[in-house]
């Protein structure tokens, strides 16, 4: 035996692939996320496309060794840009078998996945743990996984006293070896991650990293090679919530009022740390209603302010949102959507607040609703939102979701522009005869007057009012002012360009999506086209007003279908008829606007859509030989 241990290992089998998906899963607090983040950052620096998703349990500190506590990162690494989280995972490092079971049970792992599991549990003195280990391995044997037990903590004990704190670096070392990652880049990332700690912490982490690397060199017989292409443009890597925070700064907004709610709150975490340096503040209000009230007060008094929330918070803000529309007070609201209704799935993705965002206010309440499709768009949409809110004197809603909020991916570093920022406040006396709502009769647009301007005094009111903001006591005033507020939406639509079709401009099926699903839909379309299906896709950023030219685009396809992360009945479900079928939210909107019989396919699994599931939906709707 000793002879074989010292013999040179056989050269590893090299797997050359265009992409691979890796997960590191652990109990909360074992450092799996740090390991995953460094692996992803280094992969991006080396010129790979990367999409990282955080695996987050609902509790802060769930009990150890339970499937519900699975925490970690899932990193899809590709030769080219990666636009979504993909299908299933190819390689997993798990710190215990229970968190691995969680991933197995949600069908997250490829049938032939390579699983590296901490195996100290098999040797536990606690017979219950040993029994759990054995039961888990039996359950995992239902698939053709390749399981490699690794004594991670025992290995780490040769360097440190408390291996629980250091094995994430050992795991990172294994990944570095398997994926041929640049060790110098990794060390630089570790130095950055522990920049607030002592030199000794850095040295110890690097020692653990190298231990893992060498252990994998000696014991893992496989290497994965994903070609890299260094980017010619500088890139930044961040999640969608960070991009929203950065975009709000770039827009020149100076006040974010919020109340904590998952998964929106991390926008305010970043802003709370840095916003004051930029001349802005984050106001944590006493409740969701107060948060939007403070934002409206600030907006009314000067520069456009914003509020961030998720579905339940948007519901609470409803009355104030109507006030912003009625008083034509600019306001930006970001809704990072989660599963609903009610408390729903607080940490999980869903796109089911669209209709509430569009139509959730009382009375006629025309306003702008937009949805970013990528992390990069999360940045730019805040600049557009601020400008539209000011120009059109109305509420602008931005619908992001938990997929964008927690997905991490690189995008080209924006070239910042001063013109993105709000102009300084104009406090000059108002012009003779200028009215509080000097509506242009054609467009409904008007210049607003902020307090502090001599000669402009008026009382803003949520009551129906005339152009001088006087309370309306006659019905024609309400008819006219309603038309003026509504007209602005048509004017904005007239300024938008028709969306671009992804794929051929005509065919059997057009898939229409909105928000975070763009990457997964387009990947699915690519795969379906390779199968010979005549399918294209269209992705909408503007939901109110809708982007122009949709009816003409739809006419060129035999069938149009939305793909959405919200619930819809399947046509062949029990009791479901053409008339009572409850449809996907975007399809309801499109049917109304175009009178085209738009079909829909939606799922609410509490996770981003997998491209393969969309391919299957496409196959189901377009049988080979073309649409019926």
């Amino acid at each position, binding site marked *: 035996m000793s002879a074989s241990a010292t013999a040179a290992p056989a050269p590893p089998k090299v797997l050359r692939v265009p992409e691979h998906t890796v997960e590191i899963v652990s109990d909360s607090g074992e450092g799996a996320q740090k390991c995953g983040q460094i692996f992803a950052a280094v992969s991006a620096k080396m010129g790979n496309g990367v999409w990282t998703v955080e695996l987050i349990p609902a509790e802060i500190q769930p009990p150890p060794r339970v499937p519900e506590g699975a925490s970690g990162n899932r990193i899809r690494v590709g030769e080219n840009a990666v636009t979504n989280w993909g299908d299933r995972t190819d390689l997993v490092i798990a710190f215990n078998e229970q968190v691995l079971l969680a991933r197995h049970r949600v069908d997250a792992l490829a049938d032939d996945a390579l699983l590296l599991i901490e195996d100290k549990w098999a040797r536990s003195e606690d017979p219950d743990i040993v029994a759990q280990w054995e039961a888990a391995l039996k359950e995992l044997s239902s698939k053709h996984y390749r399981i490699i037990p690794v004594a991670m903590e025992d290995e780490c004990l040769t360097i440190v006293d408390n291996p629980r704190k250091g094995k994430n670096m050992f795991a990172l070392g294994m990944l570095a070896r398997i994926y041929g990652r640049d060790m110098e880049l990794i060390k630089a990332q570790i130095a950055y991650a522990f920049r607030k700690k002592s030199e000794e912490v850095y040295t110890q982490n690097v020692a653990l990293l190298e231990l893992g690397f060498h252990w994998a060199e000696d014991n893992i017989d496989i290497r994965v090679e994903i070609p890299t292409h260094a980017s010619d443009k500088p890139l930044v890597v961040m999640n969608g919530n960070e991009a929203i925070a950065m975009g709000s700064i770039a827009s020149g907004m100076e006040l974010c009022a919020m109340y904590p709610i998952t998964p929106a709150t991390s926008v305010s975490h970043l802003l709370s740390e840095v916003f004051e340096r930029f001349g802005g503040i984050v106001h944590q*209000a006493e409740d969701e209603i107060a948060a939007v*009230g403070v934002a409206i007060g600030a907006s009314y008094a000067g520069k456009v302010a914003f509020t961030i929330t998720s579905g339940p918070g948007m519901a609470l803000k409803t009355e104030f949102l109507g006030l912003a529309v009625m008083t034509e007070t600019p306001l930006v609201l970001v809704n990072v959507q989660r599963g609903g209704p009610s408390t729903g799935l607080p940490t999980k993705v869903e796109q089911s607040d669209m209709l509430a965002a569009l139509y959730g206010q009382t009375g006629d309440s025309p306003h702008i609703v937009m949805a970013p499709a990528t992390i990069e768009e999360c940045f730019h949409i805040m600049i557009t939102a601020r400008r539209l809110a000011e120009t059109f004197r109305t509420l602008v809603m931005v619908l992001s979701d938990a997929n964008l909020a927690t997905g991490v991916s690189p995008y080209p570093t924006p070239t910042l522009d*001063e013109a993105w920022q709000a102009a300084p*406040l104009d406090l000059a006396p108002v012009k003779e005869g200028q009215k509080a709502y000097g509506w242009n009769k054609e467009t409904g647009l008007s210049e607003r007057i902020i307090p*502090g301007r001599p*000669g402009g*005094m008026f*009382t*803003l009111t949520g009551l129906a009012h005339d152009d001088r903001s006087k*309370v309306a006591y006659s019905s024609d005033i309400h008819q006219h002012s309603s038309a003026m507020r509504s007209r602005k939406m048509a004017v904005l639509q007239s300024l938008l360009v028709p969306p671009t079709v992804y794929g051929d401009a005509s065919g059997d099926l057009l898939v229409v999506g909105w928000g975070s699903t763009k990457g997964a839909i387009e990947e699915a379309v690519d795969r379906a086209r390779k199968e010979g299906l005549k399918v294209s896709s269209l992705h909408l950023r503007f939901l109110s007003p809708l982007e122009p030219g949709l009816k003409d685009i739809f006419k060129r396809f035999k069938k149009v279908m939305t793909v959405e992360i919200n619930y819809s009945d399947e046509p062949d479900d029990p009791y479901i008829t053409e008339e009572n079928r409850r449809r996907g939210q975007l399809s309801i909107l499109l049917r109304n606007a175009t009178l085209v019989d738009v079909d829909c396919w939606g799922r609410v699994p509490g996770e981003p859509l997998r491209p393969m599931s969309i391919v299957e939906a496409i196959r189901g709707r377009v049988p080979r030989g073309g649409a019926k």
Partner: protein
Amino acid sequence: MSYTCGMLPVLDQHEDHHYEMSEYEGAKARWCPGCGDHSILTAVQRLLAAEQLAPEQTMMVSGIGCSSRLPHYMKTYGFHGLHGRALPVATGIKLHRPELTVFVTMGDGDCTSIGAGHWVHAMRYNVDMTAMLLDNGIYGLTKMQTSPTTPQGFKSNTQPFGTLLPPLNPLEIALGVTNASFVAQTAEWAPSHLYATLRAAYKHKGFSFVRILQRCPVFTPAIYQKAVQDPARIQLLVHDDGVVTPDLEKIYKSQLHHDPRDLAAARSLAEQTETIKLGVFYKNPSKPRYEESRRVAPRTPAERIALLEKEFARYAV
């Protein structure tokens, strides 16, 4: 924030102008004849003239209800918003534009019922503004429903056999909030006291909460009637640091020297409701003000871009 520089010339222009009371008058008030709100409107206009506040630098923020119509009757900037939500709006205005002078008018339903959460937190934020609770003990605009301050036994449209619970005491609540800095009570039927109290509230730096007892001539004409008719039912809280109204001292012979810095005494007085106490219960100008702790240095667009580029470097691949 970058308004400061642009604002100064505007202020300079108005240094010479003397504002008459009539220059603060907006639309003709449409409250019922005999409504206490008329007297409150006059007191506010008198205060603005006495303090020579530039109308364009003055904000009247309100919620919904009879009392919340007040901004329409002023010639200042006004924000007539949502029921119960005047205080968050006023807080937002003051956070972004601290140089504006902000007054808030709310009714008892507005402040102590649907907006009670905001009321407690606004007291605690202690943002510099004058908040008036126009307390007539009833919902007027919606036609006589029981409010939190309706006297027990009062027959309303929603509690026709008599209001069920004893009324909420707004002073006790206000004085119970951590970081409250100014709590006073006055009455619309004592105009000089009303004016003096509002003036003390205006001059206080911080959140000034003034409960104004107010008669609704249609629904609750009688609730303060005994006190109106019998001065012995009223006790004045007198102090140089609070409110002193010599003209009233002959009418209201019951006077108590109360130091408004004494919070324990203020709380004890607030609990004693056999006589109506008018005056400043509590005042402490040294309490931290939220907007002061949120002041940030303004940035030019160019500075913001330079800083943001540095911030992006943290995320560079």
